[in-house]
């Protein structure tokens, strides 16, 4: 089956007319707000999927915890290194036994953290923080450390902290 020359030119002319008519065809008006909403919904879904994948990869959580501990430890080492060898305060050293019974308070959000979300997953990392890492109170002892729990997000950033109250009490007594 093939077109006769006369048919071909007529078909071309008709197709050109249809092409022109199609070019004039206007789709319904676009609701850009709906488009943007759809895009955001999709991006949000992607972000949630990414978080779920991260949470599924259990290898990352210990790494984050290790990173926090390492940072705290590094801070302590640096501090004591800069200050030189100083014996721990006898009062504190004597007051802190080998095994401290856990007596914990409520988590307090860290000022610099992006905040807590009830839908997000966190892990608790127990650390010992040198007292020198805190703001210095005139006349207070800066030696020793205090045990604390850090609430760490899936991105590895600490969001909140709580102190072992038994430790806090001992430090407080030692200061007096």
């Amino acid at each position, binding site marked *: 089956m093939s077109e006769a020359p006369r*048919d*071909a030119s007529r078909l071309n002319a008709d197709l050109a007319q249809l*092409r022109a008519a199609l070019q004039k065809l206007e789709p319904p008006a676009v609701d850009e707000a709906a488009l943007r909403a759809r*895009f955001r919904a999709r991006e949000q879904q992607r972000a949630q999927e990414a978080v779920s994948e991260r949470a599924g990869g259990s290898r990352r959580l210990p790494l984050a915890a290790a990173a926090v501990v390492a940072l705290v430890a590094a801070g302590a080492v640096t501090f004591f290194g800069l200050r030189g060898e100083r014996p721990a305060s006898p009062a504190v050293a004597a007051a802190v036994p080998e095994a401290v019974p856990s007596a914990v308070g409520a988590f307090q959000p860290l000022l610099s953290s992006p905040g807590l979300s009830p839908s997000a997953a966190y892990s608790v990392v127990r650390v010992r923080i040198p007292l020198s890492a805190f703001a210095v109170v005139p006349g207070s002892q800066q030696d020793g450390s205090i045990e604390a729990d850090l609430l760490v997000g899936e991105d590895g950033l600490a969001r909140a902290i709580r102190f072992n109250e038994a430790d806090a009490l001992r430090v407080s007594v030692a200061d007096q």
Partner: protein
Amino acid sequence: MDETDPAFGDRIDARLLADIAAGAEQAFVELYRRRHKDVYRFAFAMAKSRSFAQDVTQEVFLNVLENASRFDGAKGSARAWLFGCARYVTLDRLRLERRWTDDMPADVATHDSDERLAADQRVERLHAAIARLPVEFRETLVLCELHELTYAETARVLDCPVGTVRSRLHRARALLAAMLDEGAEASTDAGTKLGPLEARGVCS
């Protein structure tokens, strides 16, 4: 650079696709503004239905959201890639709609056929005839003749060799000429012209 230059326009589209893949909302809106008419007109040319074309357009851009990162400029133009998405969605919906319209009362199934593309009856008959072509000839003709894609671009969209595009186009034109001749004779004999309602009936 001239915005009407296809190569320049394609670079913009490719850039927008990359930005969409990276999460840029404005790029998505911009690509929609630039290309939704192409997608809508392709779907309309294939199915001769405005509501069908609207649904396809929406679905294609949802696919773009999902798959923008899969676009590879080395394999073809962004425009061809978009037409490929549009073709995929269109064929999928045509298959669904064929089943669907079989179960529908005639007056509902032909709801959109009152829409007229143009006042010209010849153009109307031509479009109706295109809608009755077998789909592999129809899509080739729509891409090459109505959207003026090159043979190479059409081959990319259809995922077939350029030679196949040429032969399908030749066959599509021959079928179309025969259908229009038959339609003209029938309308002369009956004193009526082949309208969109009849075309729909034959198509389904």
